[in-house]
């Protein structure tokens, strides 16, 4: 059974079905969306079950010729790097679709685009042919444009086109890099594993140039400072469920691309770039945290905290050690879970109060005990409280970076990794500060009588958030089950890059 094809194209099948359903039957469309994304989730669980974590090889591979004249194959496969992100994607998509049941406007189109988007994201994570990878990468953009532009907030139309053009601009660099690689490889190929095994024969200059081209394409997605300017607008204007997908999955595509393609394919360029990457990670961490601190809109605050959190993942990646890489992948997953639930929760309060202003609330803790409990837990996880998921991955990222390559020095004789890792701790402090301030302003203090009629979370909202909350606790208590999935892949990858 071609499980990977199945998991990727089930949502697309659902999208096509929704397209032919009658427009008035909104409940049919909702059901179809849940069923098909649910099926896709179940298939991903099956993949998790049959996956062998002991080997670093690409598993469940599917390969058939697609465009023979260019040697392009339909080549899919998963390993410890892509599998956690694959399952994260199917889970977040399913939960976001459940959270989207309150969408009343143009329901049919909404779920159509949502499912197309899911296929695009899953495709990127399983594609092992660079051409195919690029196709899926581009296929994601159009649904996102519509999802932000039709169902978003006040500035949705501007946000949609800005997001679209910005990412399309990034794709230029990727396409040039892909074509350059194809013609440089001997024999010509788009196959990612083959290109990786040929990586050594790419000359130094070529390697650096292509690495940088790909870096720009991926950095826009992460986003890495200074390519982050699309993010706040898109995240804030997007409807709740789409913000979840944007933060939870789309940002990971950038870091995933670097680890899947750039690092193993251009090892010497990657190692050469470790220090710049480290500094960019530091900027992301501190800058993201400080800007988040300055926000009064809860959604904007969470959006900027994403820049900070992706900075931790970059920090782990810059280390080029097993600990750092493990931490980075775990951080990607955790950020998806935690920030996903934060966006959902901000959406819950916005749906009721129609404001996200920090100053507008107060004392909600007594009025909405369930909501408060979940929100506080998610915030704590996000600021890195031990015992919750975020702490483990942030700790691993810091540990990895701190102990990385002691020979690298900056400013005379200061060990670069120790210096910037230490400075990055500022980010943790600031993150803690703004989350605690939010908790204080919204949930503690005197009750604002204006919100007398506010109701606690509905069962549907709980169904969307509670699985994420449970995962937050589970990974925090027992991270080993996730780490063991990725460990052998990471070990092999680090050994390959460092050889």
């Amino acid at each position: 059974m071609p499980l990977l094809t199945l998991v990727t194209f089930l949502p697309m099948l659902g999208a096509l079905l929704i397209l032919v359903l009658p427009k008035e039957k909104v409940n049919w469309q909702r059901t179809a969306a849940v069923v098909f994304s649910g099926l896709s989730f179940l298939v991903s669980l099956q993949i998790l079950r049959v996956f062998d974590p002991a080997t670093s090889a690409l598993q469940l591979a599917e390969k058939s010729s697609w465009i023979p004249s260019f040697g392009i194959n339909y080549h899919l496969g998963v390993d410890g790097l892509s599998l956690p992100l694959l399952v994260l994607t199917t889970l977040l998509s399913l939960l976001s679709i459940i959270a989207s049941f309150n969408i009343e406007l143009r329901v049919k189109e909404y779920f159509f685009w949502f499912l197309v988007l899911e296929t695009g994201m899953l495709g990127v994570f399983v594609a092992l042919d660079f051409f195919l990878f690029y196709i899926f990468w581009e296929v994601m953009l159009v649904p996102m444009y519509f999802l932000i532009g039709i169902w978003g907030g006040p500035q949705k139309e501007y946000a949609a086109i800005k997001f679209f053009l910005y990412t399309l601009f990034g794709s230029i660099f990727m396409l040039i890099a892909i074509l350059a690689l194809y013609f440089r490889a001997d024999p010509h190929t788009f196959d990612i594993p083959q290109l990786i095994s040929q990586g050594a024969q790419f000359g130094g200059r070529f390697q650096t140039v292509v690495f940088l081209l790909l870096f720009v394409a991926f950095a826009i997605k992460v986003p890495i400072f200074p390519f982050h300017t699309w993010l706040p607008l898109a995240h804030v204007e997007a409807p709740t469920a789409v913000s979840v997908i944007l933060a939870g999955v789309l940002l990971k595509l950038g870091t995933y691309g670097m680890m899947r393609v750039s690092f193993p394919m251009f090892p010497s360029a990657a190692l050469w770039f470790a220090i710049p990457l480290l500094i960019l990670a530091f900027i992301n961490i501190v800058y993201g945290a400080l800007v988040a601190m300055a926000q009064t809109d809860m959604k904007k605050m969470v959006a900027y905290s994403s820049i900070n959190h992706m900075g931790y993942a970059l920090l782990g990646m810059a280390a080029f050690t097993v600990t750092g890489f493990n931490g980075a992948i775990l951080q990607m997953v955790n950020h998806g879970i935690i920030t996903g639930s934060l966006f959902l929760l901000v959406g819950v309060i916005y749906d009721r109060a129609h404001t996200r202003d920090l100053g507008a609330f107060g004392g909600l803790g007594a009025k909405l005990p369930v909501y408060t409990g979940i929100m506080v837990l998610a915030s704590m996880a996000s600021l890195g409280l031990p015992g919750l998921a975020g702490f483990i991955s942030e700790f691993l990222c810091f540990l990895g970076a701190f102990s990385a390559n002691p020979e690298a020095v900056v400013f005379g004789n200061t060990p670069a990794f120790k210096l910037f890792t230490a400075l990055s701790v500022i980010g943790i402090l600031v993150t803690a500060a703004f989350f605690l301030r939010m908790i204080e302003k919204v949930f503690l203090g005197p009750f604002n009588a204006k919100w007398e009629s506010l109701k606690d979370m509905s069962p549907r909202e709980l169904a969307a958030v509670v699985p994420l909350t449970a995962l937050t606790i589970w990974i925090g208590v027992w991270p080993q089950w996730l780490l063991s999935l990725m460990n052998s892949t990471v070990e092999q990858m680090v050994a390959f890059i460092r050889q």
Partner: protein
Amino acid sequence: MIESARLLKPEIILAGAALALLALDVSVGRGSLKRWALAAALASLAAALACLLRFPDSGRAFGMLSIDEFSHFFKLVSVLGAGLVLLLAEDDDSLMGGSAGTFAGLVLLSTVGTMLLASAEDFLILFVALELTTIPLFILAGFLRRDLRSNEGAIKFFLMGAFSTGLMLYGISFLYGSAGSTHFQALASVWSADVPANRTLDLVGLFFLLAGLGFKLTLVPFHQWVPDAYEGAPTPITAFFAVSRDAGVIVVMLRLFGEFVPIGRAGLTDLFALLSVLTMTIGNLTALRQESLKRLLAYSSIAHAGTLFIGLVAANPLGREGVMVYALAYTLMGIGAFAVVAAVARIKGSDSLEAIEGLAGEHFGLAMLMLIFLLSLSGIPPFLGFLGKFYVFAAAIEAGLGWLVAIGLLNSVISVYYYFRIVHKMFFRDSRILSLASPANWSLRIAAGASAAALLIFGVFPHRIASWVGQASRALQ
């Protein structure tokens, strides 16, 4: 003689049908002619298509026309384009009302010209075929006799066209004087001669020739006639303009510069690259500001001509294949986009950008079709338009023209901005103009639907197309 005629069977069928249709129009009373004219024209196109598909002959006709797989491909594209245009026009009273025979006949004649161009390897036949393509277009551009815009477009088009033809003839006379023959082969011997001869005469000749061809291909700076002619003509004819020149002139250039005058050796690579960059950039930047759908698509078609030209600049087999894929894709998506514009103009009575507002709310299917065409025009996968761009860019990278690819891709992003202005109007806005009529008739739906389906299917499963063009491009050396 008989052999040559046999090779040109598709052209002969179409030319015969065209002449019969023209004659019919003057001899028979108006009345019920309309339906028969269209049916007859479509039947002759089908017959030509069958000829091309069933009996892919190859050989030389009259010593001036090379019939090979390469020309076959473009002939198929021309026939396909003409068929789609006729389907589009079925419901247009201005075209099909009074003189349906004339209209259909002219479209067929122009198509014959394009088909001959695809085979031309002699300057005489090049000239005749080019005139045969263009002169019916002059008339078609001014087909709305009582419409000022149509007249203006036609006059501009005619004057520019006549001028550029003169330039081209002048250039051909230089080339003839230098080579002693009108056959392309004679040029090849001039350029391949090892003695470093004085080639001023040949270069001057090539420049003038290029000016003439550049006019037809709407390369900047020979493009000024395009927007007015496109806007003034009835929409189906505009669609015909957009596709007929791709499949015609670029083929001659591929043949001439691919097989006989290597552009690298003639030192023309930089000039050609510059033309391509100018055409893409100016076409796109001007398209950004248009408020009329037809003008917007007109400028975008100029930009596409520039991108297509990259395949020629690359001067390698992959570039040729790219031009073939791109020409096929552009025929489908160009006609498709104009088909939707025609439908919108019918519903709303206007072809301004405002008219397409709220299309998704009122006619969701039509809006989705337009979305497919626009995505394909933008070069977003998985549609065939992306594959065309991919091919020409790959060819340019192979030829070491990375900077040209970078400019081409940047232009793609610019073009996305104005294509998505249309998407934005269709999906994010509500209609402000009252609908006048019901949505499009069956033939337009067939044409647009089939084009969209082909763009998607060939975009997702391109291996047939890829192997076909790969084989066909080998017909040239």
